[in-house]
């Protein structure tokens, strides 16, 4: 019976427990009746004993507090990694002592791997002399390997933190780089706007004879170049003045100069 139960627990797709047939509407009705009866009695201590066998299974068991079994494996509550002592395996490294433990851990790992190799050498020697006595050495090798793996697995949270640190550093670097790039782009646009304001003064937009250009255009451009430096606006003013002074230029010439200004502005 016990064996049968074990095989059922360990199988990948276990058959449903035998009591599933008890879950019928009729039984559930009965259970409800029972429970209301218990409530009215106010005595729930030995009331469960009075429950008929087919109804007992309908009441879910209390959640486990210590450990439980699932698919043949025992899980502890709260969930944690079982220590070597709990698994009846001798522990070959000292217990952690917070401060210098990480240094120690590397040292222990190195020690264990050396010891592992030595054990193997002994095993080979034994195999040469009396092969029947292999069992003890193989056991030692096993213990060593398990201990090394345990030590490495204990190291994992540490590594996880370390990885997180390096990822955050990377992200910080990226973010700063982006800020830097943005600032560069801003500076570029500013110089461009500033050079445009000089082009503006080239005579195309501010020339008094330029009747085709609506003044609203002028306003927009000036508004856009508000960020230009004060020196730039000073040149604008002087250039506009000169443009107004010899306003007798013909259209072609003005057009040409505007193109030159455009090219200077890098457009």
């Amino acid at each position, binding site marked *: 019976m016990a064996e049968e139960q074990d095989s059922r627990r360990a199988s990948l797709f276990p058959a449903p427990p035998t009591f599933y047939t008890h879950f019928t509407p009729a039984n559930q009705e009965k259970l409800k009746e029972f429970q209301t009866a218990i409530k009215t009695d106010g005595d729930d201590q030995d009331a469960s004993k009075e429950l008929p066998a087919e109804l007992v299974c309908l009441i879910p068991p209390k959640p486990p507090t210590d450990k439980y079994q699932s698919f043949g494996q025992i899980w502890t509550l709260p969930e944690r990694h079982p220590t070597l002592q709990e698994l009846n395996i001798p522990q070959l490294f000292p217990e952690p002592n917070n401060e210098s433990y990480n240094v120690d851990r590397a040292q222990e790992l190195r020690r264990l791997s050396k010891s592992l190799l030595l054990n193997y050498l002994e095993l080979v020697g034994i195999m040469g002399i009396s092969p029947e006595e292999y069992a003890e050495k193989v056991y030692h090798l096993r213990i060593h390997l398990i201990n090394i793996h345990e030590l490495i697995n204990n190291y994992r949270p540490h590594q996880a933190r370390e990885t997180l640190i390096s990822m955050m550093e990377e992200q*910080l670097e990226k973010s700063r780089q982006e*800020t830097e790039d943005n600032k560069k782009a801003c500076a570029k646009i500013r110089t461009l706007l500033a050079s445009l304001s000089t082009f503006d003064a080239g005579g195309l937009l501010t020339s008094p004879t330029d009747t085709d250009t609506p003044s609203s*255009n002028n306003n927009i451009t000036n508004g856009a170049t508000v960020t230009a430096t004060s020196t730039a606006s000073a040149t604008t003013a002087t250039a506009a003045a000169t443009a107004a002074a010899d306003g007798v230029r013909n259209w072609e010439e003005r057009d040409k100069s505007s193109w030159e200004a455009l090219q200077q502005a890098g457009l």
Partner: protein
Amino acid sequence: MADRLTQLQDAIDQLATIFYCALRYVGTHHDFAPTHNEPKVRDETLTPDPPALFRSSQQELARDLVLKTKQIEVLIASLPGIGVSEDDQKERLKELGRELERAEEERKESIREKEELLVQFDEVVRSLKRV
């Protein structure tokens, strides 16, 4: 690429496999030596390698073993965060978190600035087009 710890664990597993392979090779490929005048013993389950090959194979297996051990040592030496305590790590994490927040603020600020400039620039380009 797997992380260092997994690499180390894999290396250890490989070392164990090499342990087994070496013993098994010697066990299944050795030859017999006759003592005195007895005839040489035979075993049908064994396929002895010629002495030269046997020797070189042994050497190769031994070299593998030593190489793997060296590799393990290197991996141990290069484990991340050696000499850093858990508290140090936590302190560093907090600090990085603060710095990240600050950098993010700056980044958003710069993006906002860029977008503003873009709008200005757009207006200029539009006004030029109308000329």
